[in-house]
């Protein structure tokens, strides 16, 4: 039953994509929070160099040796970037832009020259071939399972263990690195551990999604989650859920349109980012816009009641407190006047009699609150 499921082609493809997404989101959450997302880009490109070197030395194109060897390349990349930035001859961003293209170039050239007959050609380097993960299988306890699925399961478990065991430390590092250092949690060591696991995950995911699409799996789901929630554990959870849904949706869309499966999965994570950007409950563009409008409307209503309150019971009230006077005295356009009067009436702040505007008790209260805010602190407004 299980072995049948494991060898089911669509299932193995979707499960691999989902595991890449979960493993990547677990780590990506912290990379995004620490503003180091672009290190993922650097790592995922330069591990090509590591993969080729390890392959040339050992003849192994995948497996634990590859993962460890290439993971070291990832760490080496970050070390080189930091070394270069520390000379203060180039800025940090330029250092990233110098180091990884150089390593990547060497990797690609070596691939071109020496490894043309291996399955890791330059095309797979960039795109991966998640559609073929079911071809390589491995026997585990008498059950046959796709190799990529097994290695991604192991990596996901390791990442999950890492994040669970060091949750507090990682959280402290992400939000207050200075405090973490002062308390002796060695954030630098933890950060390098995080980058090592990122590199290892990149290598394990490499055959499936390649160098560039891996960046999408690491950065995009946590970024989308970041636009939706303020809680760290929710960010991890949402990121993983987004990755899983994007993998499943991406698979079916790719089959439907007959296009790259990995590309479509990555594109689906992008769709979630777009959704979060637009419809996020607090930080989404629409929420921001409606909050801005609400604030404007509130300000306008206050201006209206204060205007009416100032002239109430004084000479000229008949002229000032009417609809027609507002366009002139508050410099509002006629359509705006109509809208605000309407809203204020609905809110029970004013009563409109013919063209005359009268404050209600509630409206008067609001005006006093604006004009005499000290009464609020003294407890209650005078009648």
């Amino acid at each position, binding site marked *: 039953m299980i072995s049948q499921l494991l060898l089911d082609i669509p299932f193995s493809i979707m499960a691999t994509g989902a595991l890449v997404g979960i493993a990547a989101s677990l780590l990506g959450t912290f990379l995004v929070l620490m503003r180091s997302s672009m290190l993922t880009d650097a790592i995922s490109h330069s591990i090509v160099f590591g993969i080729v070197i390890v392959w040339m030395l050992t003849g192994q194109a995948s497996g634990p040796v590859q993962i460890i060897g290439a993971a070291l390349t990832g760490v080496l990349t970050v070390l080189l970037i930091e070394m270069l930035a520390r000379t203060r001859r180039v800025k940090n961003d330029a250092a990233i832009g110098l180091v990884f293209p*150089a390593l990547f170039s060497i990797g690609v050239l070596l691939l071109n020259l020496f490894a043309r007959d291996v399955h890791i050609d330059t095309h797979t380097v960039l795109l991966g071939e998640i559609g073929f993960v079911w071809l390589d299988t491995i026997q585990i306890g008498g059950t046959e399972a796709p190799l990529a699925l097994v290695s991604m399961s192991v990596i996901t478990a390791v990442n999950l263990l890492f994040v669970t065991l060091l949750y507090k430390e990682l959280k402290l590092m992400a939000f207050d690195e200075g405090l973490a250092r002062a308390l002796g949690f060695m954030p630098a060591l933890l950060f390098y551990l995080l980058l090592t696991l990122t590199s290892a995950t990149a290598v394990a995911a490499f055959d499936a999604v390649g160098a560039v699409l891996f960046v999408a799996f690491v950065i995009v789901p946590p970024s989308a989650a970041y636009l939706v929630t303020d809680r760290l554990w929710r960010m991890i959870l949402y990121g993983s859920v987004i990755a899983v849904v994007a993998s499943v949706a991406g698979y079916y869309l790719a089959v439907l349109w007959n296009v790259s499966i990995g590309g479509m999965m990555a594109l689906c994570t*992008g769709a979630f980012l777009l959704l979060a950007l637009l419809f996020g409950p607090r930080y989404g563009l629409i929420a921001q816009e409606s909050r801005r409008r609400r604030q404007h409307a509130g300000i306008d209503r206050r201006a209206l009641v204060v205007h009416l309150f100032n002239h109430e019971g004084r000479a000229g009230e008949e002229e000032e407190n009417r609809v027609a006077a507002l366009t002139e005295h508050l410099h509002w356009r006629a359509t705006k006047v109509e809208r605000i009067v309407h809203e204020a009436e609905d809110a029970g702040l004013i009563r409109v009699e013919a063209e005359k505007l009268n404050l209600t008790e509630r409206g008067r209260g609001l005006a006093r609150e604006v004009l005499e805010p000290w009464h609020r602190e003294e407890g209650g407004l005078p009648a």
Partner: protein
Amino acid sequence: MDGLIAFLSDYTIQNVMAGAALLGLSSGALGVFAVLRQQSLLGDALSHATLPGVALGFMVAGTRNLESITAGALLTGAAAALLVLVLTRRSRLKTDAALGAALSIFFALGVVLLTRIQQTGNASQAGLDSFLFGQAAAILRSDLWLMGGLTLLALLLLAAFWKEFKLVTFDASFAGSLGLPVVLLETSLTLLIALAIVIGLQLVGVVLMAAMIVAPAAAARQWSRRLEQMVVLSALIGAFGGVTGAVVSATGPNLATGPLIVLAITVVVLLSLLFAPRRGLLWAELERRTYQRSLLENRVLLSLSRVAQEHDDPGYAAEQGMLDAFHGRPTGASLGSLERRGLVNRVEHMPEEGAHWELTDSGRREASRVVTQLDGGNEEREAR
């Protein structure tokens, strides 16, 4: 020699060299602004984001037409820049996440579109893969006209708005206070960088074009601190690296052009980092050593003078071993140098006890000069 002439008069080689020179000129000159504005990685995002444009341009034209491919690449590059802008300005995402997201999403879109084109089985799609890593051999004479025109356009615009771009790069808020349209100028700079990326796509490919923006400028920065010189130098370095890499790649099969060009320029960057006058790491190290050596010499000189004072004997001969022990390191080299400067003399005092040294007249004068200098420094410090 005949071989070289034959090589240089080869039609393809000429095309490749001209194309690579154009690519290096434009990306070198405009990359300076990206690097100085600390937007090196925007180049990375933009170059990856041109992939869907390449595919779209191909789909619209139905063939590998460089004009439509270039237009498409420019379009999606600009769209990615816009996405980065919206994400950083209007959401809580920081620049790094915005860049990474734009880069990977647009690239994914490009991959999807490319596979879509492959499904249609269009025969001329074969050349599209060359946009990933660049392929020197794929360049045509007609492509050069387009590349040349775009390079000319980019450089003319740069020259026309030179003062404005310079001001925005170094002090955007001052530029704003002068009434310059800062946002417009920054947007134009970003678009010009996108243009430079698009010019090089065919030779370097979408993945590595980012390096062409960063590397020549980073190398040029080591040699000059004036923007004018830096832009010219960066353009020249870009062109040199471009031509070197492209020519090497044209000599053999299976040599992707992009990686070779990037490596050629990386070598220039390394050399610049090491050897550039004043800023070069090698010079800095030499300077540090010279300084340390003169520091130790002064200290040895003062020790000799103090020992002589303690013994009330201006010609007191101090034992070298004692000086070594006092300074915690061998002082032989320092003493040798002091001797060459005529400040100390080696004397034959108890030869079996090792070398002994005494101050000369000028050595005593130098020692008191150093002491006065040091005291002056101390007084100044106390006065503060």
